[in-house]
C-alpha cells in the first residue's frame, strides 16, 4: 500500500483529530486532506504527473507536510530541501533529479526563479486550499519512487538516495507494530524533513491518526525550550539523535523535573549514545528506550531496546538485531560472514533497502553500510566506527571531501582539509585552509562562499589557516597530523574549547 494512503485513511476515520501541530501552525486530518488534494490539483495543472519529481524548499511547517502529501497523491516523488539550504544547491538538486517543479515559500520564489533560470515551474506552497477539491489518490507499485533524500557525497557532489513506497512502508509498518501507537499519541518531530528520522515521526503518526508536533529548526538545539516543549505538548514518542538528548540532559535540565507521565518511548539513532547518558535517561523515565540503526540507504534495519543488562554491564549499547523484515550480517575483510566476537562490515538486505542512488544503476543485492561492527553472541551487533572518511556531526553524515571541494573552489584558497574534532555532543567540523600564494582569506568571506554552496550542517564549525597541509608518503593529506600541524604553526589564535569532562 502507498505511503500517502496512511493520512488519507486517518482523515476518513478521524477527520477532526489534530494531524500536524506546533509553533508553525496546526492542521487536523480533514484540513490536511483538503489542502493536500487542492495542492495536488494545482500541481497537476502545472504539469506534474505520476513518476515525476518535485523539489520542496522551505522551513518546516504544516504547509511542507501538505506539499509532501500532495506530491505523493499524484504518484510523483518529493525531494525535500531545508529552508536554510542555499538556493544554488536547491537548483543543483532540481537539475540533478530533473524535477518537474519546485515548490517554495513566497519569500523565496523570486530568488529561486532567478537561480533556476529556465522554464521549470515553481510556485508558492502556501495557498488557501479549496475545500471542494476532489480526492487525489494515485495507485502506486511498491517499487515506485516516493521521495529522494540528498546526502553528503564523497565525490564532492550530493547523492540522492531513492526510497520507494515499499521501502518506506516496510519501516513505518515496523515502527507502528513496535510502538503500538494510537490516535491519542503525540509524536515529536525533532529531525529536519531532509533527514530520514523525520519519516518515522510523520508517517507512524499518520498511520494511526496520531498528531506530529513539529519542532522548528531554530529550537532543535535550544535545550531549555526543548525540555519545556516535551512537557507542554505532552509528547508520547520522542525521536532524535543522541546529541540532542545529551544537550537536553546537560544544558536543558531535563532530569531536574520528574519525567512527564505521557512520555512512553524515547527513540534515538544516527550516532553512538554514551552509556552514562543512557543510564541517566533510564533512571529518569519509565519510557521504553530504543536504539535504532540504519543509514539513509536502508532506513531503520536494526533495533536494540535498552534493558537491565545495559544498566548493569559496561559494554557499549548494541545497535541490536534486524527489524522491518531485513537481514543483516557482518562480513570479515576476507569476505566471509563474521563469527561471534569477530569484526566485519555490516551488510543489510531486505525490503527497506533503497532503490538506489538517483542517476546510477539500480541497487542490487545487499547494501554495504561502510560501518564496522562486532557480532555479539545474542545475534545483535556492536558498532565500532566507519571504514572510510565519512563522519557524523550531531547525527548528520558529512563526507569531508565534499566540504573540502567546496572550500577549494574559493579563488584565494589553494587547498583545504576537513576533519571532525571531539565526539558525541562536542563533535565539531574543523576546516584547515591553505590560502593561495600571496593571498589573504577572511573567515567570514570564506564562510559566505561555503554557505552559498552547502547546507548548514556541512558548514565548518571552526576554520583555521595553515601555510601547508601535512601529507603522508602516498602524497595524500595526512588527516591525523592536521591538528598537530596547526599547533606547530601556532595559527590557532586561541585554544579550542576543552571537551567536557567525562559524564560519568
Amino acid at each position: 500500500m502507498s505511503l500517502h494512503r496512511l493520512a488519507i485513511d486517518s482523515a476518513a476515520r478521524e477527520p477532526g483529530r489534530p494531524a500536524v501541530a506546533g509553533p508553525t501552525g496546526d492542521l487536523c486530518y480533514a484540513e490536511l486532506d483538503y489542502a493536500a488534494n487542492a495542492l495536488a490539483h494545482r500541481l497537476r495543472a502545472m504539469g506534474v504527473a505520476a513518476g515525476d519529481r518535485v523539489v520542496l524548499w522551505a522551513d518546516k511547517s504544516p504547509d511542507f507536510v501538505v506539499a509532501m502529501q500532495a506530491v505523493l497523491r499524484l504518484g510523483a516523488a518529493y525531494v525535500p530541501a531545508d529552508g536554510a539550504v542555499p538556493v544554488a544547491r536547491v537548483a543543483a538538486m532540481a537539475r540533478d533529479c530533473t524535477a518537474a517543479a519546485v515548490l517554495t515559500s513566497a519569500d523565496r520564489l523570486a530568488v529561486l526563479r532567478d537561480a533556476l533560470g529556465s522554464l521549470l515551474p515553481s510556485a508558492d506552497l502556501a495557498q488557501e486550499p479549496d475545500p471542494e477539491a476532489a480526492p487525489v489518490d494515485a495507485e502506486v507499485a511498491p517499487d515506485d519512487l516516493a521521495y529522494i533524500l540528498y546526502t553528503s557525497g564523497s565525490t564532492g557532489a550530493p547523492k540522492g538516495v531513492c526510497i520507494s513506497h515499499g521501502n518506506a512502508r516496510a519501516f513505518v509498518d515496523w515502527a507502528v507494530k513496535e510502538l503500538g501507537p494510537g490516535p491519542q499519541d503525540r509524536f515529536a518531530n525533532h529531525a529536519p524533513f531532509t533527514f530520514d528520522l523525520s519519516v518515522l515521526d510523520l508517517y507512524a503518526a499518520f498511520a494511526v491518526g496520531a498528531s506530529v508536533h513539529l519542532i522548528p529548526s531554530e529550537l532543535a538545539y535550544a535545550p531549555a525550550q526543548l525540555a519545556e516543549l516535551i512537557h507542554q505538548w505532552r509528547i508520547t514518542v520522542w525521536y532524535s539523535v543522541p546529541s540532542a538528548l545529551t544537550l537536553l540532559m546537560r544544558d536543558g535540565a531535563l532530569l531536574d523535573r520528574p519525567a512527564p507521565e505521557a512520555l512512553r518511548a524515547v527513540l534515538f539513532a544516527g550516532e553512538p549514545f554514551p552509556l552514562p547518558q543512557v543510564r541517566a535517561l533510564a533512571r529518569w523515565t519509565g519510557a521504553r528506550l530504543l536504539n535504532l540503526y540504519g543509514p539513509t540507504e536502508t532506513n531503520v534495519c536494526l533495533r536494540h531496546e535498552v534493558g537491565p543488562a545495559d544498566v548493569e554491564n559496561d559494554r557499549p549499547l548494541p545497535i541490536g538485531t534486524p527489524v522491518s523484515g531485513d537481514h543483516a550480517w557482518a562480513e570479515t575483510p576476507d569476505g566471509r560472514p563474521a563469527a561471534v566476537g569477530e569484526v566485519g562490515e555490516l551488510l543489510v538486505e531486505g525490503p527497506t533497502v533503497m532503490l538506489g542512488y538517483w542517476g546510477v544503476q539500480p541497487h542490487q543485492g545487499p547494501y554495504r553500510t561502510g560501518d564496522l561492527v562486532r557480532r555479539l553472541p545474542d545475534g545483535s551487533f556492536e558498532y565500532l566506527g566507519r571504514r572510510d572518511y565519512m563522519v557524523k556531526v550531531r547525527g548528520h553524515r558529512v563526507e569531508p571531501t565534499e566540504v573540502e571541494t567546496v572550500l577549494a573552489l574559493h579563488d584565494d584558497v589553494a587547498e583545504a582539509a576537513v576533519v571532525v574534532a571531539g565526539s558525541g555532543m562536542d563533535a565539531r567540523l574543523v576546516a584547515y585552509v591553505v590560502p593561495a600564494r600571496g593571498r589573504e582569506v577572511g573567515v567570514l568571506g570564506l564562510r559566505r562562499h561555503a554557505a552559498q554552496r552547502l547546507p548548514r550542517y556541512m558548514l565548518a564549525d571552526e576554520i583555521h589557516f595553515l601555510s601547508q597541509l601535512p601529507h603522508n608518503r602516498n602524497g595524500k593529506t595526512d588527516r591525523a597530523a592536521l591538528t598537530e600541524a596547526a599547533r606547530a604553526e601556532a595559527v590557532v589564535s586561541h585554544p579550542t574549547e576543552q571537551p567536557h569532562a567525562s559524564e560519568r
Partner: protein
Amino acid sequence: MPDQEMTKRIAEYIREKFLDGDPQGELQDTSPLLEWGVLNSLRVAQLIGFLREEFGVVVPPREIHADNLRDVRSITAMVARLA
C-alpha cells in the same frame, strides 16, 4: 544601556567566540550569521546564555527564530525589546 553599546558587546562576543577574533575585521552589523554558519544550532544556545548573563535578558522560545538571529543588528533589536 544604549543600543550602540549593546551592539558593540554582542559583536565582540561573536568575534571572540565564533570568528577567531576576526583579524580581517569582516564582521558587520548586517553580516548574515545563520546563513553563513557563524551561528549554528549549538552556538545559538551559547549566544542565548551570553545574552542572559550579559544583559539579564531571558529569551523565550517563541523569540528564538531566524528573524531575530539573522545578524548583529536583529539580535540587538531583540535584546532591546526584551530588556
